[in-house]
C-alpha cells in the first residue's frame, strides 16, 4: 500500500479528511454569508438576483461548487464511517454515563448536530437550489433609468423569459433574471420553515464551536502562539457571527 493510501485509511487520516472538508465548508460559509447579505438590501432583490446568476454561471465558481457538494458528501460519509468504527471500539456500553462531567455536550454529539445540518442542507437546497435550477422560481425584469438612476422591478411572465439577460435600450438598462429573491420571500412566510432554519443555525453554532478548532487539532496544528486566534475564530466568528447572520435572514423576511 502506498504511503498516502495507508495514511488515509488510518484513524488519523480519516480525521484528516473530516478536518479538511470541514474547514473548506467553513470558508464557504463566510462567502455564502457575505453574498447573502444582499438580501438585506431594499432593492427588490436586484443585487441578490444578479449575484445568484453570477454564482451559478461563473466557471471557476462552478468548479468550487462541485467541490463543495463533494465536501458535504465526504464529510458526512466519513463521519458515518468513523462513528461505526468508534462504536465497534466499544461494543459493550457503560451502564453509567458521565454526562457533562468530563466533556462538553456538543463535543459528544457532533453526529446529532451534523445530522440536523444535513437535513437542513437538503431542505435548503430543495427550497432554493433545486427550484432555481429547475425554473420553479418567478422571473423578474429590472429597468434602470440611466439618467435618473431610478430602478423599477416588474414581474415577468414565464413565457416571456428566455434566459438571464442584460441589455440597454432607449436610455434604460434592462436586467431579466430568475427571481430567487421572491422565492426567499415566499419561503420564509412559512413559520415552520423559519423555526427550522433558526434551529439549524443553533445546531450550526454548536457544531462549529467544537468543529472549527478541533479541525486544527486533527491537522496537528496547535501552535501556542496561534491557537488563541483559532479559538477566537471558532467561537466568535463561526459560533456566533455566522449562525446569527444566517438566522437573521429568515427572521427578517418573516417579520418584514
Amino acid at each position: 500500500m502506498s504511503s498516502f493510501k495507508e495514511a488515509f485509511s488510518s484513524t488519523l487520516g480519516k480525521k484528516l479528511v473530516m478536518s479538511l472538508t470541514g474547514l473548506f465548508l467553513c470558508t464557504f460559509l463566510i462567502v455564502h454569508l457575505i453574498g447573502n447579505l444582499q438580501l438585506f438590501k431594499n432593492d427588490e432583490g436586484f443585487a441578490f438576483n444578479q449575484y445568484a446568476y453570477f454564482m451559478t454561471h461563473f466557471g471557476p465558481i462552478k468548479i468550487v461548487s462541485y467541490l463543495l457538494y463533494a465536501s458535504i458528501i465526504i464529510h458526512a460519509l466519513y463521519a458515518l464511517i468513523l462513528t461505526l468504527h468508534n462504536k465497534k471500539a466499544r461494543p459493550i456500553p457503560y451502564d453509567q454515563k458521565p454526562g457533562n462531567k468530563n466533556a462538553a455536550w456538543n463535543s459528544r454529539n457532533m453526529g446529532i448536530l451534523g445530522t440536523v445540518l444535513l437535513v437542513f442542507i437538503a431542505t435548503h437546497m430543495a427550497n432554493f437550489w433545486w427550484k432555481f435550477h429547475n425554473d420553479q422560481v418567478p422571473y423578474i425584469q429590472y429597468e434602470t433609468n440611466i439618467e435618473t438612476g431610478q430602478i423599477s422591478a416588474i414581474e415577468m411572465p414565464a413565457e416571456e423569459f428566455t434566459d438571464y439577460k442584460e441589455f440597454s435600450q432607449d436610455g434604460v438598462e434592462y436586467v431579466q433574471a430568475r427571481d430567487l429573491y421572491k422565492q426567499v420571500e415566499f419561503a420564509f412566510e412559512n413559520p415552520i420553515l423559519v423555526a427550522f432554519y433558526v434551529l439549524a443555525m443553533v445546531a450550526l453554532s454548536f457544531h462549529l464551536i467544537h468543529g472549527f478548532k478541533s479541525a486544527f487539532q486533527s491537522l496537528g496544528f496547535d501552535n501556542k502562539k496561534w491557537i488563541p486566534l483559532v479559538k477566537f475564530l471558532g467561537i466568535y466568528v463561526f459560533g456566533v457571527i455566522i449562525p446569527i447572520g444566517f438566522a437573521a435572514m429568515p427572521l427578517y423576511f418573516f417579520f418584514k
Partner: protein
Amino acid sequence: MSETTMNLTLKIWRQKNQNEKGRFVTIEAKGISTDMSFLEMLDVVNEDLTRKGEDPIYFDHDCREGICGMCSLYINGQPHGPKHGTTTCQLHMRSFHDGQTIVIEPWRAAAFPVLKDLAVDRTAFDRIQQAGGYVSVNTGGVPDANCLPIPKVKADEAFESATCIGCGACVAACKNASAMLFVSAKISQYALLPQGQAERWSRAQAMVEQMDAEGFGACTVTKACEAECPVGIKLTNIARMNRDYFNAKFFKEETVHH
C-alpha cells in the same frame, strides 16, 4: 480529621472470565470508614465475601500510590471515580456519602477485553510500545550524559508527556474508546527529545499503525481523556502525534521497520 462510617450499596460488574457473560451484582458494604481508600473498601467487601465462602471480586491494583497504573475501575460513570487528577487507589471514601449507590464497571473497550470481574487485559498498550516506543541504543557505548544539552523547557515538556502511567483511563473515558492520548504521550516524549529524532518518523507511523490494529477508536476531541487523566497528560500531545504522523506519511522517506 473526622472519621465516620457509612453504609453503601455497590452495584458491581461480575464476570467469571473472558468468554462468559457478565452481569451487575448488588452488594451492601456496611461500616465503611471515610478514611479508607476506595480499594481498601473493596478489600473489606472481599474479606466479607471470602468469609461467606463467596468468590471475592477481582480487580487490578498494585502499588496503591498512584504511580504503577495498574488500578482501574469505572466508578459512577467516571474512570478512577469522581475526583479528577487521582487514581482509584488514591481516591478516598470521604468523596462519597452515607447511603450512596456506587456503580463499579470495568474499563470498556474492544481492545481491553474483560478477564474477570473488574480486571481487563491492557496488553494492547504494551504491543503499541513494542512497535516503536523506544530509542534504539544498546547498553554501553553511549556518550557521556552531559554531551547532549537539552533546553530545560524541552526537557520539562518531555517529562510532562513521559509522566503517563499507562492506566488506560483515557481509553475508558473516551466515548470512542480511543487510545490517542496514551499513544501520543509516548510518541511525544521521544519527539520532544533530541535522542528520539533518529527514529522520529518511523516511530510515529509504527505506533499509530499498531494502535489502529488493536481496534481503538478515533479521536473526536471531546477532551474527556484529558479531564480524566490521573497525571494530567495534555491534548497537545495528540496534535503533535497527528503532525508527526502526517509529516512522516506525506513528506518523509522513513518507513516502518517490521
